[in-house]
């Protein structure tokens, strides 16, 4: 064992990235591997709620207390990822008064600032709330961008010397003499496929310790060393609206139930969710009734949702875990607490710990505890600094500066860019060339796209999560080819084309669950733009060679300067 232990962290979600940052800041050597993009799993499929803890204030007070604590930390260290919208727990006439009072006192007991507001006051805050809402409890819920947060954690880890490998799937755990000594990964990359950090191929990464932070996939990793890790994946649907019907997080104040939250998120509002146990974290049904239930049930709180435009739906899987002796039947009964499974203590297999359960809001705290645990293994005495040091983008950040003049950007686009980039705005937006808007729905400029490409290579879905480009109303219909073009200066045409197709298909996948009304019109337009105008569906570059000589060569070809043009005399009405 060298002087500095090398830790392999598996999983590029919030937990894995948080652990990688923490360990790297404490001076350890870290390699983080992720099978897809950063946030590919559960983290990229959440509703973007920064919990105040109010949600757990009755059922799970330990979690609630942790949430409010971390809520305050994240506002501080990740200000460019957080929008403090505030939240309301609203009570409909048919909801129980007793529970409302329990929620209120629960918040007080957990140190969550909470205040009762009348129905009128709640509607003054949120005019689209249902007329018959009785009253509400206001709490400091917020919205948080999980993509930006995880990317910032990974960037910080990198700054502290960590190696971050995306699109690298763990294919085996290396076990020697009854001890985990590393991992084997397959890099899904290289020319012709996708180009980012490393060329494609298999790599054995030897490590002094392995942390399995793969959430719902933890059981899969455990299987590779014959370990039994019983994660209970539970799926939940989220439906994205094309505008923010509300600017405050709206929770339904009742014990538990599906479809009880609306989170305003950037330009959208996200409706959530359901809680249903599934067998396989990657293969489970995504059904129409789930989407319909979101809209129908949440319309009881915000009636206009019934007529509103949805742009897509997506499903996430929670990595629920409970110790083997509890045995809950209903996934909503399973604690949201997290568990640290030391496989030496638990299974007599030293060299690895798994972390399961937990919540996005407390990712940093989980990272801290895991890092303490790992450091303990090596007798390293180093303090955790992740609660105090701002993430890249959140250092000394003020949106009040006049970026419009400085970067020649028009007001709404400039403001949004700067909000997304935080303290990195200068570095990213100061370019030599012109900086046109590439994605109009989300106001993303060329400079931001180029910055994301620099950070993530040719994967346009990775560019998307870093910038929000293609995540608005048109779902890539107007901008996917533009994003692809931005790759071209650096990557070969075939790689660009593949990345473009991959992005378009990913955007289509979620939109399928929103194909009626306006979004079906949009989808029909996108389909026409790509198939009719561009012929992307029958592109000869992807298919059979074409016999060009069999087609029209024009009747004016030999005529020099356009002899057939009726306006060749300089007339004013030619085409």
């Amino acid at each position, binding site marked *: 064992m060298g002087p500095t232990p090398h830790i392999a962290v598996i999983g590029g979600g919030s937990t894995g990235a948080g652990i990688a940052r923490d360990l790297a800041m404490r001076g350890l050597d870290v390699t983080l591997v992720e099978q897809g993009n950063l946030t590919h799993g559960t983290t990229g499929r959440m509703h973007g709620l920064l919990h105040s803890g109010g949600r757990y204030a009755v059922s799970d007070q330990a979690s609630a207390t942790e949430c409010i604590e971390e809520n305050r930390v994240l506002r501080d260290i990740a200000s460019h990822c957080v929008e403090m919208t505030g939240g309301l727990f609203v009570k409909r006439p048919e909801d129980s008064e007793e529970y409302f009072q329990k929620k209120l006192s629960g918040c007080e007991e957990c140190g969550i600032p909470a205040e009762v507001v009348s129905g009128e006051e709640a509607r003054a805050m949120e005019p689209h709330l249902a007329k018959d809402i009785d009253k509400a409890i206001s709490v400091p819920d917020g919205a948080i961008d999980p993509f930006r947060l995880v990317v910032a954690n990974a960037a910080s880890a990198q700054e502290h010397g960590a190696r971050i490998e995306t699109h690298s799937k763990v294919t085996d755990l290396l076990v020697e003499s009854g001890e985990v000594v590393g991992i084997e990964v397959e890099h899904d990359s290289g020319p012709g496929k996708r180009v980012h950090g490393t060329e494609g191929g298999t790599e054995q990464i030897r490590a002094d310790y392995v942390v399995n932070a793969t959430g719902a996939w933890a059981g899969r990793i455990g299987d590779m060393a014959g370990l039994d890790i019983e994660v209970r994946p539970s799926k939940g649907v989220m439906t994205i609206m094309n505008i923010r019907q509300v600017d405050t997080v709206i929770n339904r104040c009742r014990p538990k139930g599906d479809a009880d939250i609306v989170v305003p998120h950037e330009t959208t509002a996200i409706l959530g969710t359901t809680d249903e146990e599934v067998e396989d974290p990657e293969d489970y049904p995504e059904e*129409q009734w789930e989407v*319909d239930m979101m*809209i129908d049930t949440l319309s009881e709180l915000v009636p206009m949702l019934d007529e509103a435009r949805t742009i897509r739906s997506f499903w996430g899987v929670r990595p629920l875990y409970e110790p083997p002796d509890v045995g809950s039947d209903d996934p909503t009964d399973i604690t949201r607490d997290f568990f640290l499974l030391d496989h030496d203590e638990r299974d007599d297999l030293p060299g690895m710990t798994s972390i399961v359960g937990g919540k996005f809001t407390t990712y940093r705290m989980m990272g801290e505890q895991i890092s303490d645990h790992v450091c303990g293994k090596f007798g390293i005495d180093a303090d955790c600094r992740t609660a105090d040091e701002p993430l890249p983008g959140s250092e000394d950040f003020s949106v009040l500066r006049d970026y419009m003049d400085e970067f020649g950007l028009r007001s709404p686009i400039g403001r949004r860019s700067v909000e997304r980039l935080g303290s990195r705005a200068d570095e990213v937006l100061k370019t030599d*060339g*012109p900086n046109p*808007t590439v994605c109009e729905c989300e106001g993303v400029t*060329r400079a931001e796209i180029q910055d994301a490409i620099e950070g993530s290579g040719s994967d346009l879905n990775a560019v998307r999560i870093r910038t929000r480009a293609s995540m608005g109303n048109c779902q890539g219909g*107007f901008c996917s*080819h*533009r994003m692809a*073009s*931005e790759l*071209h200066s650096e990557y*070969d045409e075939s790689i660009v084309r593949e990345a473009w197709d991959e992005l*378009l*298909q990913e955007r*289509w*996948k979620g939109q*399928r669950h929103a*194909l*009626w*009304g306006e979004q079906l*019109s949009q989808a*029909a337009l996108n*389909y*026409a*733009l*790509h*198939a*009719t*105008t*561009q012929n*992307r*569906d*029958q*592109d*000869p*570059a992807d298919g059979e*060679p*074409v016999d*060009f*000589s*069999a*087609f*029209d060569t*024009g*009747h*004016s*070809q030999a005529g020099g*300067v*356009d002899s*057939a*043009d*009726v*306006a*060749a005399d300089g*007339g004013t*009405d*030619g*085409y």
Partner: protein
Amino acid sequence: MAIESEVLVIGGGLGGLTSALAAAREGADVRLVSYKQSTLRQASGLVDVLGYTPDGDGPLTNPYEAIPSLPESHPYRKVGVQTVRDALSLFDDAVPTYEGEHTETNALLPTHGGSIKPTARYPAGASAGLASDTRDTLLVGIEEMVDFDAPHVAAHLDATGVPFDVRGETIRFPGDLRADAKVTRYAKLLDTNSEVAVRGRMVPAREALAQRVNPLLEDEDRVGFPAILGDDNPGAIRDALGDRLGVDVFEVPMGPPSLPGLRLEDALFAALDEAGASIETGNPVVDFEGEDRIEKVFIEKNGAKIPNSADQYVLATGGFVGKGVESDREGVYEPIFDCHVPHAEDRYDWFEGQLFGDHEFARYGVATDDDLRPLDASEHSEFENLRAAGSVLGGYDFAAEKSGSGVSIATGYAAGQRAAQEAR
């Protein structure tokens, strides 16, 4: 008192305009009403007839030969192949600035994404860019224009196997336009040929543009630009650039807002005006009266409902994109006359999992008899004096087939002509 005409066409896109033109040329008193801007501004401006069969065979060299083998539900089968030819003749006559009428063979045109597509008619401005033409090509992109990255388009075109060398260069457009200027700003500057500052000297815009391109030109015989070369005077602009560069100049069709689409729309409105039709744009048809026969329709104008009555009606309001066909979570419908739109009950059957899958929604629209009268669920005509034309028709996937313009022109022609004949 209602505003009266013999034929009332609802919709100002390619189908509606062709309908009204055909009816007017039959001698009928025609009125065309359209609500929103037509989807022509979103289309490339190319006029496709049929590029691929519903099974995906193609690109087809001769679209007319393939029409008799199309499914019976296809609009081309309703009107017949000779009508398609006649309709294209009407188009050629009304829009003489288009080419391709010298042959029944499809042309292949480069797209702004770098692919090529089969089409039957193309604007004169695109004609020097044909992909079957073997002359070497330089594509010029504008630094600020994110829709056309010339080096990428050139590399992609090369990958399609085009029979010529193609290169892309990027320039800064003269005249200090804002980084996200609309294409119409570029067009306007070239149309007016206003002077722009080039290294402290004032130079007319067309000359300034040629000066930027000239040093980039190697041995190429033709130069392609994105379709921004003027709105009012495109021919003169191309000539001016061509003269100064000593090559043929062409435009590559673009996505929305599409200047070639807008120019085509203008040309058709002008032809319709000349044919003596009355035209009203900007107000929606919101209601109608009538049982088996439509008596009148109501146009909403400043809150008032203005009755318009006619002997014959043509519904050319577009498909999902143009909002002539609409949907909600429960089903698919035609919003003005509530004509039946056949569709699967479960909305998850409307589409496929792959973006370019065999989507049912792409074929949704009204079904008609051979006289283009919309049919109800029991296959009886909805109204005896209503015909439908263009994308409001079901039974074909224009995007996959590359048949949108052809179907609009052919069914518009047939519906307009028959409506006029019946009204007389």
